[in-house]
């Protein structure tokens, strides 16, 4: 590093976890909190506006809204839960998909530029406080507590001794791991993605301002990296929203399934 011509007292500080712990804007309200509520306004506003004068022959806006609505409705709820019972869960799956999608996409929208779910609290709120209780509740309501547990922990078709091993694994997977992995998956992807963008952006900025000489030219590479990572992030953000809602639907479907 000795050959690098760096400004003497300006050392490069890489971005870290502190960059996600934003100070409150007012009265303890932080940026991600505002963004979460903003997403509610955006999603509700979009769907309400696009279906305001809904017709059998959809307008352009209605067509867009229907296309978005049909993804969680048909591809997730109906395919995972089954055509018989999925209707009750359509609002939940649609909300999950839209909420996660919009809050993720914040990360690449100028000015906002912060994926809400990169703070694990929001992801946990969705998975542990919403999805987890819902799928266990509907399963227990349908089969009764013991019927449900038997259904979930003792999948038929295995030799008796295997259940000694299988039942604890199933219990661990369904009652401990699933809600956590659901939250951690989207949180980690958003955290890492935002960190990646920060690294490229801050490094580019640092090279441009303090680099001097040919390092200024290198900063261009860094900024190109920002753009490339932004595109990658757009893909990952959409995929994570899709996976989050799809897995939620899948958990509900599994809880309601007769035997699997």
């Amino acid at each position, binding site marked *: 590093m000795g050959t690098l011509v760096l400004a003497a007292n300006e050392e490069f500080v890489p971005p*870290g*976890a502190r960059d996600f712990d934003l100070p409150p804007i007012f009265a303890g309200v932080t940026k991600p909190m505002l963004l979460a509520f903003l997403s*509610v306004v955006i999603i509700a506003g979009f769907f309400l506006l696009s279906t305001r004068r809904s017709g059998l022959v959809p307008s352009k806006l209605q067509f867009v809204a229907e296309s978005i609505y049909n993804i969680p409705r048909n591809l997730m709820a109906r395919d995972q839960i089954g055509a018989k019972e999925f209707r009750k869960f359509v609002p*939940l799956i649609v909300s999950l998909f839209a909420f996660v999608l919009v809050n993720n996409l914040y990360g690449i929208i100028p000015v906002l530029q912060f994926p809400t779910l990169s703070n694990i609290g929001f992801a946990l709120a969705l998975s542990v406080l919403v999805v987890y209780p819902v799928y266990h509740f509907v399963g227990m309501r349908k089969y009764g507590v013991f019927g449900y547990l038997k259904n979930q922990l003792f999948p038929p078709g295995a030799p008796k001794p295997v259940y000694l091993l299988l039942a604890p694994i199933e219990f661990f997977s369904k009652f401990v791991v699933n809600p956590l992995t659901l939250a951690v998956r989207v949180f980690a992807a958003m955290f890492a993605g935002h960190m990646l963008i920060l690294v490229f952006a801050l490094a580019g900025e640092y090279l441009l301002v303090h680099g001097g000489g040919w390092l200024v030219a290198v900063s261009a590479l860094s900024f190109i990296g920002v753009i490339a990572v932004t595109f990658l992030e757009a893909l990952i953000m959409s995929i994570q929203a899709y996976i989050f809602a799809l897995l939620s639907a899948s958990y509900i479907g599994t809880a309601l399934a007769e035997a699997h």
Partner: protein
Amino acid sequence: MNTPMPWAAAGDPNPVMPHASEVIVGFVAFMLLLFVIWKFVVPRFETIYEERTEKIEGGLQRAEQAQAEANRLLEQYRAQLAEARTEAARIRDDARADAVAIREDMLAQARQEADRVIAAGRESLAAERATLVRELRGELGALSVELASRIVGEALADEARRAGTVERFLAELEPPDGQAAGAGAR
């Protein structure tokens, strides 16, 4: 943590530890969204979808009904057409029968007429013949008398002359005798 990671600088928060406030805010915000979607958005979409399905199914049903109606009418028209054809055939047969009857009638009349004409002709012929015969009978008497007188007057000796006389007499008879001879031949 003897060797701190570069991102875990002193005082950095642990990103895996959730803030209780964020969990609560996230939950409340999501519940708010879920409420709006549940109460307003999903019912609107589902209503549209149901209406659309109904519209399509109703359209199919209406099309089926129209098809059935069309088939019924077609059958009806076919039946009517067949009926009309039978009727026409019947009328044609009747007409043909009528025509035959009329022709036979006319033929019979014509035959009767012809018989009548023939009978009248025969009658008039017979009458004429009777007249002719009567006239000839009178004339023949006179002629016989004249012939006899000539024969007697010309002397019976000459054979040849006698023959010539007869010839001449007959020749004289010939022209006015054409009718009488014909009538006589019949």
